């Protein structure tokens, strides 16, 4: 079958491929352009180069095991993806999570959002020639990732947010790390504002380029910063408040014209709001219920396992230094929900009941089994409304899991938007849409 662009090709025009492996394609997407001189007459997008069958895999994994695949959707802000999936499950199972865990989730989500916006804008600016901005923004992201690395143990594929709470508490010095990340990000944002926001070259390439009207944006199903850049007030955090967003004071920045520059500016302003939210969360977050003294007294894990071989051990066990130890009942402040969370590891290793509970959780056909039915839940992702639609048939695997990827709807409009513009306009337009291959192709 011929491509649409080939079927519609006019006399005397040139067909040009941009991608799939092109530095500005943020992954692998193929943009086919029909050019009259330098003007774009027609455009077609081909995607699917990164299709990994996410939805098919999920149908064959248990609810607990498929969490790791959600990291790989939007690999720039994996924590928001985790939150989206986990909160869909919580809605279906009817779990309320502890308050501290909610605050931790909000802090992590907001930092992820900043990372997402930083990456999107860094790539967009770099493609317009501002390499300094790219490096500055990557630097700010490193400070944020310091906190994430300390807390989650990973930089990108975190799998940190779990059904029933979060996997581990913040490290003891998290406030200093967070403070530093906030300060450095503020500094970078100020620098980048100075370098870019009034830069004539940047303005020429983005101002009044690829203007999208609010009606078109809504008709295309745009959400997130791209929709708000056209002046439409819609933010999942405000419309359907989840976690503790209704207790936080933040604004939703709106654009006026809906061009590339507005999409850039809305993201810049949103990052400042996210930083504000993190600061408020730092003040409001309830005290950690994790008793640090438990780390000091009690048996060493190895000793406990040894003694449990001969007799039932009643003594306290020291928390193991790795993250596994935090999945204990002794941390009710961050992870709750009997039957939905991994049983504490030290019980598994020292008591027979614990071992049975462990097997009951991981055995095929057991584990998390939500009631029959279907559920849709969405969170505000980095580039828009990230929704999960899960159909359960009462077994331990989802019958169907569908992801509403925000950038899918946004990128699908590129074909129409760039028509009539020049080849050079494709780059900032595509950059401002923040296409994420993992999410788009699933």
């Amino acid at each position: 079958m011929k491509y649409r662009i080939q079927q519609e090709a006019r006399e005397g025009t040139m067909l040009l491929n941009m991608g799939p492996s092109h530095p500005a394609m943020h992954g692998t997407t193929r943009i086919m352009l029909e050019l009259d001189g330098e003007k774009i007459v027609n455009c077609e997008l081909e995607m699917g180069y990164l299709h990994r069958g996410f939805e098919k895999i999920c149908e064959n994994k248990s609810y607990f095991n498929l969490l790791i695949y959600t990291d790989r959707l939007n690999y720039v802000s994996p924590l928001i993806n985790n939150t989206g999936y986990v909160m869909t499950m919580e809605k279906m199972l009817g779990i309320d999570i502890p308050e501290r865990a909610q605050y931790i989730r909000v802090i992590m989500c907001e930092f992820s959002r900043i990372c997402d916006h930083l990456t999107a804008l860094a790539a967009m600016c770099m493609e317009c020639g501002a390499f300094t901005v790219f490096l500055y923004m990557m630097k700010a992201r490193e400070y944020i990732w310091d906190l994430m690395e300390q807390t989650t143990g990973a930089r990108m594929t975190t799998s940190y947010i779990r059904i029933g709470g979060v996997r581990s508490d913040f490290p003891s010095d998290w406030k200093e790390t967070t403070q530093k990340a906030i300060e450095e990000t503020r500094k970078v944002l100020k620098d980048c504002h100075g370098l870019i926001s009034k830069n004539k070259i940047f303005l020429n390439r983005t101002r009044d380029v690829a203007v999208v009207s609010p009606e078109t944006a809504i008709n295309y199903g745009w959400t997130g910063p791209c929709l708000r850049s056209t002046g439409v007030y819609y933010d999942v955090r405000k419309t359907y408040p989840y976690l503790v967003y209704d207790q936080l004071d933040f604004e939703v920045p709106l654009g006026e014209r809906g061009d590339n520059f507005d999409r850039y500016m809305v993201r810049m302003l949103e990052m400042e709001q996210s930083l504000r939210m993190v600061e408020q969360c730092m003040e409001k977050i309830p005290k950690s219920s994790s008793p640090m003294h438990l780390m000091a007294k009690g048996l060493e894990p190895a000793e406990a396992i040894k003694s449990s071989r001969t007799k039932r051990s009643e003594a306290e066990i020291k928390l193991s230094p790795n993250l596994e130890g935090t999945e204990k009942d002794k941390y009710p402040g961050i992870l709750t929900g009997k039957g939905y969370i991994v049983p504490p590891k030290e019980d598994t290793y020292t008591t027979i009941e614990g071992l049975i509970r462990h097997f009951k959780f991981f055995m095929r056909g057991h584990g998390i089994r939500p009631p029959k039915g279907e559920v849709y839940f969405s969170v505000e992702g980095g580039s828009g409304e990230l929704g999960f639609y899960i159909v359960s048939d009462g077994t331990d695997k989802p019958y169907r899991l569908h992801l509403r990827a925000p950038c899918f709807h946004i990128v699908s409009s590129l074909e129409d938007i760039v028509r009539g513009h020049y080849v050079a306009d494709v780059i900032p337009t595509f950059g401002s849409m923040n296409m994420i291959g993992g999410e788009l192709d699933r």
Partner: protein
Amino acid sequence: MAISKEKILEDLNKEFADSIISVTAQFGDEIIFFEKEALLKIVEFLIKEPYTFTMLLDLTCVDYKGEKERFEMVYHLFSLSNKLRLRLKTRLNEANLEIDSLSPIFQNANWLEREAFDMFGVQFKGHPYLRRLFMYDGFEGHPLRKDYPLRKQQPRIRLRD
């Protein structure tokens, strides 16, 4: 001028009494189940004032293998001014996988329907360009159907020009 969920459902029931099969709610979401012939009419009704379901949030398909009406189309509509979500569902028979396309009304339905066609083989009547979205030309079968094996391999295809 916001309109309540109950009023919308009542109006819908009144307007489409013979094509709506059931209206249920689960986990706080309203689900409207209807005959597939009425799809375009219902969507055109909902898009108007004062209901204003102007955004198509999501469109997907579920394969209930073994049931008489095998495929279930699921539409999520969203109203910005009323801040309401609505889920529309209809069933397709395996012998006749045709359903009206929403792409004349919602522009993002173009890609969403291409995805549903790619993954489930649903035929959309009136779609301008029904071509596989994720898979390549020459791919056999529809991967998200329940009878498509997880680890099935496809033969290599010749290099396209």
